[in-house]
């Protein structure tokens, strides 16, 4: 499996270079190195949310339980990465703003994402019957996704933010990242995304075989 070897090399490069190369934001200092891990984790949490929603839409259109396995696997991984992004972000907040949590709009939106995932699993465990569970979970997943634009684009207009944004995109919207930062950040983004899809495919296979075994036992 050639891509697993490449993933290994990319991850090794990211972990080493994140500590060796200069810190991405001189203003914040050494603590800003967490950027190389925090942002890809938050990105994967968002990708997982989108994958789960697309699988949910496919389930409602086609009624294939495999799509429900996909939605569930993506949601579980998304929850894991969401927790990781919350913890790394909280550590960063403690170092730079002297408090672990202060309801910055970004903190609010990642917290809501955590709550949505939690509610999704609570709903799944409260419904009996595979198809009913799949259908209700799919509806909730899509309904929750509809609120994302409010959290991402509208709430920052209502609430002020301290979250650093100038390390990737400047205040006037232009791309502002030094070459050495980009050399770590983009491999990290790619490595985390590939890692997500790898674990995701394993998760889908596990749920599919579990479901097959249940169906065989019933028949």
């Amino acid at each position, binding site marked *: 499996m050639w891509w697993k070897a490449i993933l290994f090399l990319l991850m090794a490069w990211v972990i080493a270079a994140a500590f060796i190369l200069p810190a991405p934001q001189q203003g914040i200092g050494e603590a800003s190195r967490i950027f190389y891990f925090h942002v890809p984790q938050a990105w994967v949490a968002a990708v997982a949310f989108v994958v789960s929603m697309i699988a949910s839409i496919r389930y409602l259109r086609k009624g294939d339980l495999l799509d429900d396995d996909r939605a569930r696997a993506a949601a579980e991984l998304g929850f894991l990465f969401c927790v990781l992004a919350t913890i790394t972000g909280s550590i960063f907040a403690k170092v730079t703003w002297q408090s672990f949590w202060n309801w910055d709009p970004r903190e609010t939106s990642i917290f809501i994402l955590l709550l*949505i995932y939690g*509610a999704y699993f609570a709903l799944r465990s*409260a419904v009996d019957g595979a198809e009913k569970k799949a259908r*209700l979970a*799919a509806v909730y997943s899509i*309904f929750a996704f509809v*609120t994302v634009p409010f959290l991402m684009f509208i709430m920052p207009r*209502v609430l002020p933010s301290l979250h650093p944004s100038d390390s990737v995109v400047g205040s006037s919207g232009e791309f502002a990242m030094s070459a050495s930062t980009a050399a770590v950040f983009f491999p990290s983004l790619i490595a985390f995304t590939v890692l997500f899809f790898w674990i995701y495919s394993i998760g889908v296979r596990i749920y599919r075989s579990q479901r097959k075994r249940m169906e065989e036992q019933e028949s």
Partner: protein
Amino acid sequence: MKRGSTVLPTSSSGLATKSLAVLRKDILSEFRTRYAINAILLFGVTTLTVVSFSVGQLGLPADVYAALFWIIIFFSAMSGLAQVFVKEEESRTAIVLRLTSDPTAIYLGKLVFNFLLLALLELVITPLFFVLTDARMANVGLFLIVLLVGSLGLAGASTLIAAIISKASIKGALFAVLSFPILLPLLIGAIAGTRKALGVTESPFSAAAPELQLLISYAVVMITASLLLFEFVWEE
């Protein structure tokens, strides 16, 4: 199961007529048991009493009163709005309703019912809130608009979630758990808008424009999404 004297119209009549028929059936059956009205009003008054006892006379800033007001509304709503679908499943009348009307009409009827229930709650809670606490109104018009649009969004989103949880085995706790993350953008906007209605005296409407845009777009988006998704929840 006695379903009352209301005759639901045949499928040839328009959407508005069917929705109104569902609404009328719900209002009639609600006045027979008064379960949702009692739950929501008593919960609201109890919470308001606790708020008034603990912090009502402290002369707190408008920000605090705006947040307390919406906390009362939100948790009262969570205690009663699910009933509209839960009662159909518990009394096993959902099957008959499914046969006699189409999903869109049922959703709209239940949405209007929940909106009216919220309006009744606010009609009782709002005057009491200003009597029992030190909160002062700076602009009545803005306050009422925020309340109206906020309630519409609240009813729109929670009606679909009520339909989802009515199919689950644990109903009570799940409603608040599923609703809270969905309703949080609305609550943030409504609290910020109410804060301006209580505190800002000069041109409050232009000051509250972002909040009003948030609340209106939230209500429109959530009701549209609910109309599209309701069919999948409702049909077995």
